[in-house]
């Protein structure tokens, strides 16, 4: 009798679980818990230190390759990285190999450049989307202007103050790729290793474990992973943003997943031995 009743729990309409998750996510978004992020992972700290040690005026290339589907995880870390670069008065270049990311890049720079009074063409440049990443990465090793002669608005880039003295990778101080795809692997293999340029990354939490080998061998000079990584970077630059607030929703969602796995397995054990 009890066994049959317990078995009913496995036949529960999945929409009840959907509702439970929706409520679990909705509550902290509306009323954040504000739990402190106590620890900062060494990999995130390495990205921060790589930017922090650069002298003002150094050129940093950001490869922002994510679209709205991974925006909640990756946009906060990209925002924090650009804020850090601008606060250190670094010159910033932006490339992208995902067509869907162009709008997010526009949005990011429209906001952050105003916060730091940075001028397009003088302090930063946004290059247009390019398909065929491998050809572009290879081309940039010898002549950046061979592939990027104009910025995303069609303005010639060769004489822009932000690009003064920048011709190829050897003139760049750090490259940071924020992506939910395998594009970071290309930066490591085709650029970092071959031309000895420091490459750091920011990736979704799900792809973070895959970059362990690159971190161990120092082929990757740091890695920001998922929303937690974004929150960590925000706390390093002392500017809480969407990463910090988003982690509240993750708090409860993660615990809900664990609670559901526990519940279903305990029910299974009870059914088996009753």
């Amino acid at each position, binding site marked *: 009798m009890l066994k049959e009743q317990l078995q009913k729990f*496995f036949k529960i309409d*999945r929409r009840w*679980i*959907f509702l439970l*998750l929706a409520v679990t*996510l909705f509550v902290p978004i509306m009323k954040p*818990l504000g*739990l402190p992020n*106590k*620890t900062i*992972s*060494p990999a995130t700290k390495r990205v921060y230190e790589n930017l922090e040690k650069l002298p003002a005026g150094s050129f940093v290339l950001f490869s922002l390759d994510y*679209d*709205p*589907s*991974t*925006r*909640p995880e990756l946009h906060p870390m990209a925002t924090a990285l650009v804020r850090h670069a601008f606060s250190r008065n670094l010159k910033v270049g932006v490339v992208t190999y995902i067509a*869907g990311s*162009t*709008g*997010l890049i*526009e*949005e990011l720079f429209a906001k952050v450049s105003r916060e730091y009074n940075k001028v397009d063409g003088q302090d930063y440049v946004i290059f247009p989307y*390019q*398909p*065929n990443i491998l*050809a*572009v990465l*290879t*081309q940039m090793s*010898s*002549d950046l202007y*061979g592939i990027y002669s104009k910025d*995303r*608005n069609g303005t010639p880039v060769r004489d822009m103050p932000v690009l003064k003295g920048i011709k190829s990778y050897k003139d760049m101080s750090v490259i940071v790729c924020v992506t939910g795809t395998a594009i970071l692997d290309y930066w490591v293999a085709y650029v970092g290793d071959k031309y000895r340029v420091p490459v750091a990354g920011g990736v979704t*939490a799900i792809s*973070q*474990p*895959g970059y*362990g*080998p690159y971190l*161990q061998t120092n082929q990757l000079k740091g890695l920001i992973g*998922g929303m937690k990584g974004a929150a960590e970077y925000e706390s390093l630059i002392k500017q809480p943003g969407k990463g910090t607030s988003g*982690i509240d929703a*993750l*708090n*409860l*969602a*993660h*615990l*809900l*997943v*664990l609670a*559901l*796995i526990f*519940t*279903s*397995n305990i029910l*299974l054990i009870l059914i088996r031995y009753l």
Partner: protein
Amino acid sequence: MKLIKKQIPLAIVFITGVLTLVSYYVPHKMSVNYIETINKWENIVVAFAFLLGLVSLFFSHYNKISRKVDGWGYSIFVFIGFLAMVVPALVSQGKQMTDTGFTALGWSYKFIYTSLSGTMFAVLAFYIVSTAYRSFRIRSLQAFVLFIAAFILILGKVPLGQIIWDWVLGWTGRGVNDVIEWIMQVPAVAGKRGIMIGISIGAIVTSLKIIFGIEKQYMGKD
């Protein structure tokens, strides 16, 4: 005929393959110029491939609509979605923002593309949680090990989990981050490295087979 259909394409692949491979390792002006030329050719080919894909997509969905096959209504949205982004892009000349705010393209991007893309991805979260309850069964030692690793990672990735860990297992003197660091640095890296080496060897072997004409499937059946 055999010369045109088989031997010349194989010769082109062999010469291009060897030259490109060698250019990667030879830092000479000639190899740099060669790579630059090949890159430009590649970009042109990619542009044509993109156009070909687009035409093929349209034909496929046009046929579904004209023959009214099951689910033909969804094919209409392929054209609606395409027009909803391409028309504003043409009107705005590819610009998403001006000093006054969003252009038509910027508006379409923010309020159509972003919303749709975000929604599609967010739906995954619901299925993951539902699957966690319905399908994650610890029935073997391997499943148990997987569960323990997943449990620690899920718990340690959020501040609330870290607080719970310290409360329950604080007496061990090990923080959850120390355990996560070990999982990521030792077993995860070992597994990932094995996979990476396997994939790389496979890719090298396949590339060599294509360059030396052992693998010819890309040429078709004729």
